[in-house]
């Protein structure tokens, strides 16, 4: 490695949000060496959130969601080429075309992909979709524009709910099936999931909870599905919104602590190897990482959040070109948002890291509220519905480990603002979809089997 960290060869594996922002940040940090960005998709880095919103509504096309650059990172872009391996000793990234790229430092930002419907034959039926890539978004938008009779959405997580919302806005009939008791229950807990269920039903969604889909029917084209309660749903489009799979298979032989929950790294984004020893030339950022967070018991946190990808990429880039004493920790409090059924839902902290909740402002009836989550007497998360301007206040409570329930005096304080109720967060294994936030324990060296 060159003595000067601002020089040398850096390879970024992954050309989506985290990869692009890291490449830009490396140059902002003064890196003058050679920079290569590898991506398996043949597209310039593009933004995914619009794919389940504007693109389905026809307000934007999937082909125009490229991310604007903050600055030109002056990188060599190797797009449409999959990385197949990482040689930690030889310091090379292996590519599917047989080439290998030498590096002094490497950033892994390979993200996730959609979890497909598990039965391959059924998943191959015409009209069965997942939603993660530009092609997925374009294909589904095209089908919705043709006004299908009914869409079946499997999974009531954020993606599934946003797809259902778009369908209703387009006037398309939609059925949502969720194995758990209500939509969004895995992310937001019991109380807000009931609001989510009411919003779906009020907007004409045929919501089926406590059921699973047992089979997709069709002869060439999808025609409907069988449910575990013995009923069937006739539909011509199906979207499997079952959550995400982390893109870690290419690291199976690398010796890194990579598994289904992601690649374990330290607060400085440095990857752990399988023995729990931190590396100093392999960094991780974005959805594929799991990292310790002091506010949540130092458990390794696994997030599928846009903001986390950006912030972690910036921290990783900084630490890749600065010596140890100048490195920074990635400590940002998780934030995410979802727009569905005309409501803006924003979350700060980790709502699933909670035992009780309280409605601190507003009310469920008004469809405008701030719900605060507490764990063992301190504030760990807050979710606002159409009350985003309050979010900074609650973020501050989380950052300062304020006592739960929050202090009195807030305007528009709910009558029941002193009454805490169980947060009622179910085990993720009872849900149709994977969690978008997961606390994955304390053990970086537990190398989970790669599926």
């Amino acid at each position: 490695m060159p003595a000067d960290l601002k020089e040398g060869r850096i390879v970024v594996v992954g050309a989506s949000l985290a990869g692009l922002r890291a490449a830009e940040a490396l140059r902002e940090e003064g890196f003058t060496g050679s920079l290569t960005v590898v991506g398996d998709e043949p597209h310039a880095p593009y933004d995914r959130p619009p794919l389940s919103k504007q693109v389905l509504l026809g307000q934007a096309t999937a082909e125009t969601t490229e991310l604007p650059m903050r600055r030109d990172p002056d990188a060599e872009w190797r797009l449409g080429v999959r990385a197949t391996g990482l040689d930690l000793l030889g310091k090379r990234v292996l590519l599917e075309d047989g080439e290998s790229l030498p590096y002094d430092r490497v950033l892994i930002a390979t993200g996730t992909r959609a979890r497909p419907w598990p039965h391959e034959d059924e998943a191959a039926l015409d009209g069965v979709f997942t939603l993660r890539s530009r092609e997925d978004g374009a294909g589904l938008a095209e089908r919705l524009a043709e006004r299908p009779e009914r869409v079946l959405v499997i999974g009531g997580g954020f993606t599934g709910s946003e797809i259902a919302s778009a369908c209703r806005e387009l006037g398309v009939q939609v059925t949502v099936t969720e194995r758990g008791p209500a939509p969004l229950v895995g992310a937001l807990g019991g109380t807000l999931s009931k609001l989510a269920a009411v919003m779906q039903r009020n907007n004409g969604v045929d919501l089926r909870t406590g059921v699973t889909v047992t089979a997709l029917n069709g002869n060439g084209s999808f025609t409907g599905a069988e449910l575990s309660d013995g009923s069937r749903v006739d539909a011509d489009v199906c979207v499997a919104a079952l959550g995400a799979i982390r893109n870690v298979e290419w690291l199976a032989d690398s010796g890194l602590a990579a598994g289904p929950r992601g690649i374990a790294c330290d607060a400085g984004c440095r990857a752990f190897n399988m023995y729990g020893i931190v590396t100093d030339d392999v960094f991780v950022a974005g959805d594929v990482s799991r990292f310790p967070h002091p506010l949540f018991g130092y458990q390794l946190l696994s997030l599928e959040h846009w903001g986390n990808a950006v912030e972690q990429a910036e921290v990783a880039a900084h630490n890749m070109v600065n010596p140890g004493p100048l490195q920074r920790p990635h400590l940002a409090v998780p934030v995410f948002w979802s727009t569905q059924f005309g409501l803006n839902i924003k979350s700060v902290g980790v709502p699933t890291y909670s035992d009780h909740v309280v409605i601190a402002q507003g009310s469920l009836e008004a469809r405008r509220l701030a719900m605060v989550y507490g764990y063992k007497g301190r504030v760990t998360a807050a979710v606002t519905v159409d009350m985003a301007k309050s979010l900074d206040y609650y973020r501050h409570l989380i950052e300062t480990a304020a006592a739960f329930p929050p202090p009195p005096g807030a305007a528009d304080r709910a009558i029941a603002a002193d009454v805490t109720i169980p947060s009622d967060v179910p085990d993720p294994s009872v849900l149709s979809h994977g969690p978008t936030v997961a606390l994955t324990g304390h053990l970086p060296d537990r190398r989970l089997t790669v599926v």
Partner: protein
Amino acid sequence: MRTVVDLTRCQGYAQCVFLAPGVFELHGEEGLLYATAVPEDQEDRVRQAAAACPVQAILLGEEVSIGAR
């Protein structure tokens, strides 16, 4: 020209919708949707929107051009 809004930062002030209603749109009271590709005749308005955003969440710029080395 492409735009992206950091909706993690967005608090629904809607200043961008006032200044460039052809590109930004409120969905409900504070959910923001926007056209990802900025039409040429809207670029000045989107520049104003980006400058005016009270939480500086709007990024306007060129996309990575494929084949760029």
